């Protein structure tokens, strides 16, 4: 978390820009202040922001993203940066915290800043040769290099007239650079202490209802003086206490006294819910979860027994060779345990605390690493049919999947809705569906040579999905926000989930298709493995169902090759996604019929979903007519995945259509 060394370097640079007015900068006491801060209480405070009550943690993360993009400032939590900017703005006057996304823009700003520095230096040290001047320019130069690398610059540099001129020029070019100049404006507005204060709506409207606006501490202050919102229903004592604690908190924060800050924030976290407990999310406040059924200790009894029940039933079903029941029970059980584990580690069922934690851990997208690790033994097990590798791979895959499930459930719990209504949620949930499907299929093919191939496909797709979420927090923005009104429909859950499951299966099919092509390529080089006839004889599912004249199914035969295994897997996934995609399209049409007024609008996203389906229709018929079925299947499956990805990436981000909200 903390990177004192980097911080020190930054501090040194901070002091380098102009020869005037520094000194009261962050001194060496800051790390210790940050160290001693207990953010748990702050993280549990609710902030109202555009129709949602968020935790202070996730709220500040969203706000600070407007300033610093996805960059972490001084290795500290956005919760700290927000308070600092609000309460100690002077300390950040020359702190490099504003993120400039566009590289050419960085260059132009740096150029102007360098000129400004030289001018400033010349006005102080008339001689360019003087060592102070040289030192001054060198330090500024270093700082600009850091800027070019990280994209972070300080508000003070942006205020330099020369730099301002450059930004104004960029504002003129609406097509290319105006967007970035506007981002800078937004960053500077958001940094304004007044703006930060006005947006910190932490007081639930006392006596007010669901649709009444939340208030700030300033509103509370005003009400004590008889202005603004009357807040009639809060007793004076509570008002006074709150304001007193808030004053105490602010002065302690300004004085960098971590102990007092912690005490005051703990007290605030305790007092704030009392203003209107009905509106304030607290322990177990979400409905429909075990602990909201009763107030006794039942919640834990219920949850633990539920988990035991799931796992028990799942194991029994495995024994009874009931793959569907088994997989449903097992995945539910895994998810349940993962979630309970999470809650136990946090020691709370308060959605606010969980939300802060969930965002502090980057929405658990680091699980991609676990999937990546699982890939290696899974690959080994398929190629070399090596038992220990298989067990290790499946074990790691299950572990990763459990974490993935936990992340999904926490998000579900925190946002109070199934996560499938923005790009981040669509991508991560799709990958999770792929995992569920893989486990289901694994149980079905448990005794066939296809074992662990589905896990491999799912691990690969989940890894890619979570990696995207991890490395592109701007494109796949994890912020939880309200769904647009048009999305409130039962078909959102049916249509969207079926489609994203189909998409994930398509991706998995492409993974096995690539492996098949690699196998064939390796075969054509070494001549060791199968030729054109190395494919699953009956196609996908049929190869596992239909029997050969000797009474066994096609793929269970002893002599099944890796090629047949991979081709069979591709076909099974392709068949599933073919049906699901068509069904999903039809469901989307049913939704669109009563939502947009036409079942089919030729919207780019619809058209490319249909195109994906057409590619697979082509695949089925080409497979029927060609000799080298395996290669053609693999190639067209890859084309299908490419069309699907184009739909998801290019259409979503580049081509605007009706679906622009998802």
């Amino acid at each position: 978390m903390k990177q004192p060394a980097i911080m020190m370097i930054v501090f040194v640079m901070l002091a380098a820009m102009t020869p005037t007015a520094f000194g009261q900068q962050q001194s060496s006491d800051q790390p210790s202040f940050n160290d001693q801060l207990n953010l748990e209480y702050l993280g549990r405070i609710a902030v109202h922001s555009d129709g949602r009550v968020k935790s202070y943690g996730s709220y500040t993360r969203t706000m600070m993203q407007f300033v610093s993009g996805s960059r972490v400032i001084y290795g500290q939590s956005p919760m700290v940066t927000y308070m600092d900017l609000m309460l100690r703005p002077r300390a950040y006057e020359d702190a490099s915290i504003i993120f400039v996304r566009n590289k050419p823009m960085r260059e132009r700003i740096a150029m102007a800043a360098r000129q400004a520095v030289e001018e400033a230096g010349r006005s102080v040290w008339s001689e360019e040769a003087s060592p102070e001047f040289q030192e001054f320019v060198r330090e500024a130069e270093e700082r600009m290099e850091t800027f070019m690398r990280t994209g972070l610059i300080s508000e003070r540099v942006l205020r330099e007239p020369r730099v301002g001129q450059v930004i104004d020029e960029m504002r003129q070019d609406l097509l290319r650079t105006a967007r970035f100049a506007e981002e800078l404006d937004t960053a500077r507005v958001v940094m304004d202490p007044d703006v930060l204060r006005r947006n910190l709506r932490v007081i639930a409207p006392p006596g007010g209802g669901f649709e009444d606006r939340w208030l700030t501490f300033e509103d509370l202050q005003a009400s004590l003086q008889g202005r603004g919102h009357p807040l009639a229903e809060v007793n004076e004592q509570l008002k006074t206490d709150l304001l007193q604690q808030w004053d105490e908190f602010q002065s302690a924060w300004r004085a960098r006294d971590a102990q007092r800050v912690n005490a005051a924030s703990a007290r605030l976290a305790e007092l704030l819910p009392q203003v209107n407990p009905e509106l304030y999310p607290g322990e177990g406040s979400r409905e429909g979860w075990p602990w909201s059924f009763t107030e006794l200790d039942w919640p834990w009894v219920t949850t633990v027994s539920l988990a035991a029940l799931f796992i028990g039933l799942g194991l029994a079903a495995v024994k009874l060779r009931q793959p569907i029941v088994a997989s449903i029970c097992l995945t539910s059980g895994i998810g349940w345990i993962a979630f309970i584990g999470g809650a136990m580690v946090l020691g709370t069922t308060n959605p606010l605390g969980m939300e802060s934690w969930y965002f502090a851990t980057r929405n658990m997208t680091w699980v991609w690493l676990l999937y990546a690790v699982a890939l290696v033994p899974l690959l080994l097990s398929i190629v070399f049919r090596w038992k220990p590798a298989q067990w290790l791979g499946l074990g790691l895959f299950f572990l990763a999947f459990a974490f993935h499930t936990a992340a999904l459930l926490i998000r579900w719990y925190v946002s109070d809705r199934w996560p499938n209504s923005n790009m981040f949620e669509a991508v991560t949930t799709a990958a999770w569906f792929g995992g569920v499907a893989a486990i289901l299929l694994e149980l079905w093919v448990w005794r066939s040579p296809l074992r662990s191939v589905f896990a491999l496909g799912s691990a690969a797709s989940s890894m890619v999905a979570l990696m995207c979420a991890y490395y592109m927090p701007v494109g796949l923005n994890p912020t939880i926000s309200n769904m647009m009104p048009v999305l409130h429909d039962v078909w959102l859950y049916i249509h969207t989930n079926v489609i994203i499951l189909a998409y994930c299966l398509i991706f998995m099919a492409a993974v096995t298709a690539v492996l098949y092509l690699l196998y064939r390529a390796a075969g054509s080089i070494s001549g060791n493995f199968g030729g054109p006839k190395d494919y699953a004889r009956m196609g996908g599912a049929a190869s596992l169902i239909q029997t050969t004249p000797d009474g066994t199914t096609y793929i269970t035969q002893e002599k099944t090759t890796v090629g047949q295994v991979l081709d069979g897997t591709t076909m099974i996934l392709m068949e599933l996604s073919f049906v699901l995609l068509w069904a999903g399209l039809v469901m989307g049409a049913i939704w669109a019929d009563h939502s947009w007024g036409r079942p089919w609008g030729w919207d780019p996203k619809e058209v490319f979903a249909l195109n994906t389906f057409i590619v697979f229709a082509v695949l089925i018929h080409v497979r029927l007519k060609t000799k080298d079925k395996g290669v053609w299947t693999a190639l067209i499956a890859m084309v299908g995945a490419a069309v699907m990805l184009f739909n998801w990436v290019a259409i979503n981000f580049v081509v605007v259509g009706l679906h622009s909200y998802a």
Partner: protein
Amino acid sequence: MTNTDLTNTGELPYAMTSNGNPLKSAVNGFLKLFSSVWLGVWMLVFLLVYSSIGSVGIWIPSGFVPDSYTLSRDHDWIHDIYWLYIHWTQLHIRQAPGLEMTEFEWFHWWPFYLNILLICVNLIVATLRRIPLNVINLGVWMIHSGIIILCIGSVVYFGTKVEGDAPILRRNVVIEVPDHDPVRIAAQPGNGIAMDVGDRHYRFEIMNIDPQWELLSGDDAGKRAFAVMVAVHSPEYQYVRTIPADFPNHVQDAIFTSDPQRPMVRAINEIGREIVDDSVQISLEYAPQDTFYLMNSAAIYLREKGTYEWIERPIHNLPRYNDYLDSRSDAWLPRRMGAAPSDTSDFVRRHLNVRVPAVDERDPLGDVPLYVTRYLRYAIEHTERMPGPNHDPVVWVRLRSERGQVQDHELVAFDSELNHAENHRLAFRWAGSRDELAEIARVEPATLRVVVPEADVDVVVSARPMSTDEDTFEPIEGTDFAYRIENVQNDLNIGSGGLVSVAIVRIRTPERTFQRWVFDHPDLPSRDLADEAGAVMHEQEVEFDDRIQMQYNPGRRPAPVTIIAGPEEHDLNLLLTIAGEPSLQALRPNQRVDLQAGITMEVMRYLPRSRPETRPRVIPPEQRERNAGQQRSMIRVELPVDGGMHEWLPHHVYPFRHRYEVLRRFLFRPKEITLSDGRVIEMMYSRQSYPLPTAIALNDFQVTAHIGGFTGQTSSIRDWTSMIRFDEDGQWTPAEPVSMNKPANYGGFWYFQAKWDPPDEPRWEGDPGSQGLNYTVLGVGNRNGVWTQLFGCVVAVIGMCYAFYVKPMIKRRRQQAVQQQLASIQGRQTNGEEV
């Protein structure tokens, strides 16, 4: 064929023997061709390519596109796209000139229909000839027939599709005054009407509309209603009447008081009755809508001036995406960034001539067709100054700040609206002679005239505020009065656009001390205000002391920066009064003058002789609102009468008939053309109309929000609900909710919640602003054949599941049955041997 995934593709069941009969061989050839699976595959590939092109066009890395095509052409059908770290040139074929198709049209064009038709024929022929109908192949049969059913349903659906939208206003305000027909105006904030009945003058203005007004008295106390507040100015009274919808017995008036703490009180509390004036009746009634307007359509509406109903002429084949201009001078074209003013090299000449014949016998132009000869995708009307024959001086001035900010102004000397800028700090004048020049430069000090008729005092003193340090009063000679000039404020902007100057004087009489505000405006008499701390803030007026009279003359000073043209036509002078004393100097175009700290001024161009010219200004693509659609388009209509006339018409979303009906945020700007016979024809460019099955009224409109209420952001809204009622044989049906995903159904059409009226800031000075919710826009559409489509889809889904999962199981059973049989035969044989 070892693979039997889907079909038994063995020998074709019907032998193709042609015995020389040309018809037979043609039929055989046809059957052979359309039995081919490969034909189907290629047609699917064609479908894929066709739909991709229609949807996203063709993307080429910009490096492979000649430069001449890539330069700032975003406004046409060629777009720049940045994706995957590559610049692409997107050729949006569907939008290219000559095609100009929407997605809907592209996918209902003959190549698409032909492709679908051929696929269907292929499917039918191949299925019938190649796939025997049996239990094994049932899945494939179902998929193929499901798709054909879907296609049939779609032809019905899209062939009969009508869709558009209908705006429905919540209420009309009906105003009845004696001896005048009732007048209806749309219940929208700011809407007003003046009426003259004989010599009686009435004025009504809707001051405010509260969608959630709380009833305070009677049995209904606590209920909330949509309430309209109308300010009434009648010859006798001035009051504000509140009319709640659906509660006619709660109509009440509020009257103005002299108490600044409570400027208005309910009439019942002041004069003992709810209604000030019974002779004026104001009520609310539904504003039913019986028409909707078709999506992506265009029409010209005509009427003779003075009539009410529009006569519609639909326009077919109007372009959508590209500009059609004959010459550069047709419009003001955008300039490329940094290019010289004359450089409009992006201009592409395109010819257009769309005939718009009359379709209605009531058409005011009779059989005379109209022609649309120019089309602009995104433009606004704009007037520029061109060199002209008449003396009408105009300058273009550029102000620059130290930080490089630039402000350009166009100043016209003879136009009192256009001859100043920067809040009257910059002005442009014409001086025909040296004397006039001197007159403009003359500074006349401000004066205050003090008259005390009793004492026969009439003096003029300099109106300069007295020092604030001491509280000294200036005695008025020969009286007991004394005064003190506190402050003068010149050229204050008052609402109606006029300027007012005021001197604030404290007057001490033997009885008291008070403040007097002396205005220079004839309509604003002086006012006396109590002289207490804060009293002025609350405008505590006291009785006017008419023993002392004052007149304020603010004097005159030229604007701080005044550019004066003359006395010779090409002379320019600059008069600066920033630094106290006026200084006059000659000025040349392109000469930079320092005005004050860091601000410089430059006359970029000067035209002594000019004329105004109004043309549409093409907005550069990067400044266009992305989802404006047709809303900013303009057409030029030619009228082949009286030697040819033409007029540019801006697009109207709805063809409102009268200014009183116009909904907030929508345009109403019909154009007039005067024919040689003296008739004046009004024209409007809008969309085609289509009758609704019955009239629809909007009873109520509700917004539900997420926690914390509506914050101004859409993300805080949970849902919008229109409560609508249908006219069923003169009776209104019970109110029915229409909200997102929950349409209403009536008369073969579905009605969807499409747009709403959000709260709105005042649009100009004096505009009351709006709390919104005054109207709704419903999407309207029919859906013939939708069940056929659904049936086809479901059959196909079942077929897929059958083909992939049921078929293998059936085969497996059969195989096992055969094996069992074999086994039993073998067993019997074995047994037999044993026997």
